[in-house]
């Protein structure tokens, strides 16, 4: 595939990220001081999580746009001769068919590439980091001060419940075995 305008956007964005890491990111990552040290450090770290997610999103987006452009080019190649004039009713269905088939095949090609898999893996990973961070902040700064149950606490209760249920099942099965032996 030829270099597209989206790849240029990508390059521009990568440059921006490098600058962020070298300048703003360093300020954000530096140790906080003072009475609100813990909170402000956690808060600032969230910014990097967001930047990582945004970068991964832009990466994926520019790749998808590139593939879309490629699919469009292929459609144009296939339908070029028929498309010299307007789309007539006799060809609109064929045109639709060619579009769907070409887009589908081009995207499948892209999705089969290791590039897409690692991109998607990275995007997912960044999204999970961001969401986890947000939830942590929500729990610490809103739910706990308001004395409301947090997901972390509910998870702990669920874990305890799971262990208890498992124990009950084990004991029931042991009792059954003992009864059968009698």
């Amino acid at each position, binding site marked *: 595939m030829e270099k597209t305008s989206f790849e240029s956007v990508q390059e521009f964005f990568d440059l921006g990220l490098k600058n962020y890491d070298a300048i703003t990111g360093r300020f954000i990552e530096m140790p906080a001081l003072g009475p609100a040290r813990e909170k402000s450090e956690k808060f600032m770290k969230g910014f990097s999580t967001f930047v990582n997610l945004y970068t991964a999103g832009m990466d994926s987006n520019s790749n998808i746009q590139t593939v879309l452009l490629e699919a469009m080019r292929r459609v144009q190649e296939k339908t070029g001769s028929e498309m010299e004039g307007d789309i007539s*009713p006799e060809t609109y269905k064929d045109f639709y068919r060619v579009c769907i088939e070409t887009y589908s095949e081009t995207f499948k090609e892209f999705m089969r590439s290791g590039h897409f898999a690692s991109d998607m893996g990275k995007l*997912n990973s960044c999204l999970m980091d961001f969401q986890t961070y947000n939830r942590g902040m929500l729990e610490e700064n809103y739910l706990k001060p308001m004395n409301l149950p947090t997901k972390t606490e509910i998870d702990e209760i669920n874990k305890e419940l799971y262990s208890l*249920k498992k124990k009950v099942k084990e004991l029931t099965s042991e009792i059954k075995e003992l009864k059968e032996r009698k």
Partner: protein
Amino acid sequence: MNALNLIEDFEKVKYGMEIFLRPPDFSVGTTPSEIIYTEDRMRLLHYIPTVEKPHPIPILIVYALVNRYYILDLQPDKSVIKKLLDEGFDVYIIDWGYPSGVDRYLTLDDYVNGYINNAVDKIKERSGLDKITLMGVCQGGTFSIMYAALHPENIKNLVTLVAPVNFDTDKGLLHLWAKSLDVDKIVDYYGMVPGDFLNQGFLLTDPFRLIIDKYVGLFDRIECSPDDAECQMRNVENIRNFLRMEKWIFDSPDQAGETLRQFVKDCYQKNLLIKNEMKINGTKINLKNITMPLLNVMAEFDHLVPNDASKPLTEAVSSSDKETLVFPTGHIGIFVGSKSQKEVCPRIAGWLKPRSLLKGTKEEKTGSSKEKSREQKGKNRRSKVNKK
């Protein structure tokens, strides 16, 4: 003329919309059944036999945790369950239900050595038999393989349908993608991983067909105007069939996080199962422990579980009586496609019948000679499959 075609297509959309404005009632999983055992969210269903004297060895079907079991009983004329009942089998199925909250901690051990084992025990108790037939479908097939390897003494026959066992293949997109997935982060964040999260992955395997073309195709199947009552009935039936499938596709239970974590890591990422290195609760799963008759069924055009993922099972087990069947259909088509009722189910039933008899019965003696000739045919078929 062509402009008329265009108008005709708009008319189809209009008629389709008219039907959608008064959507037809539809139901799924209508084959009569009774719940004979429940444990947490899991239910064990027993289908009411349709013959007076079913084959003695009952079948337990284990479906995947992703989506619901009723794809095997989508509608009366597209029902693997009904077909098996009509062929004279005594059929049970596990409905995993909709796990939530506390279930996030369920492990593969809980599913395989817990729920499946308890369901098998319950059926053994009801039938008074030591062994039953286990039929695993898709991920449920992988679970069944694990179970059969860990508890071979309970299984008379093992049938796997589109079940992955070798995950190291680049033929299926899910297999490729799963390798780059940070499942730890996903499970740690969600706990119960939303069914919709996985559904997005399935839709991504062919987005243009699954998100656009499928719906365009629906309106294309609208045949006639509302004045033609008979034809209109067909339209309604087309839409009803479509809605049944649509319901099934998006009826996706959330996934127990810890189970998903181990399944993705050990199977998709490390491919431990086929290497006999996977462990459940500390016990190694050795596929060589599978000595019972095995029928390994797969779909040639399966985009979710490619044949490369299923085929190696036949060679990995120790069974001497084993057969591989490949049908020219897709992952879902194997249950609900036209070939399902005409070819897939009859072939499975044909394979199972001589193997579903009790030892020493008159039927088994007459069945064993048929079985031998079937085995010979099976060997021939296998060689054909291998050549493929």
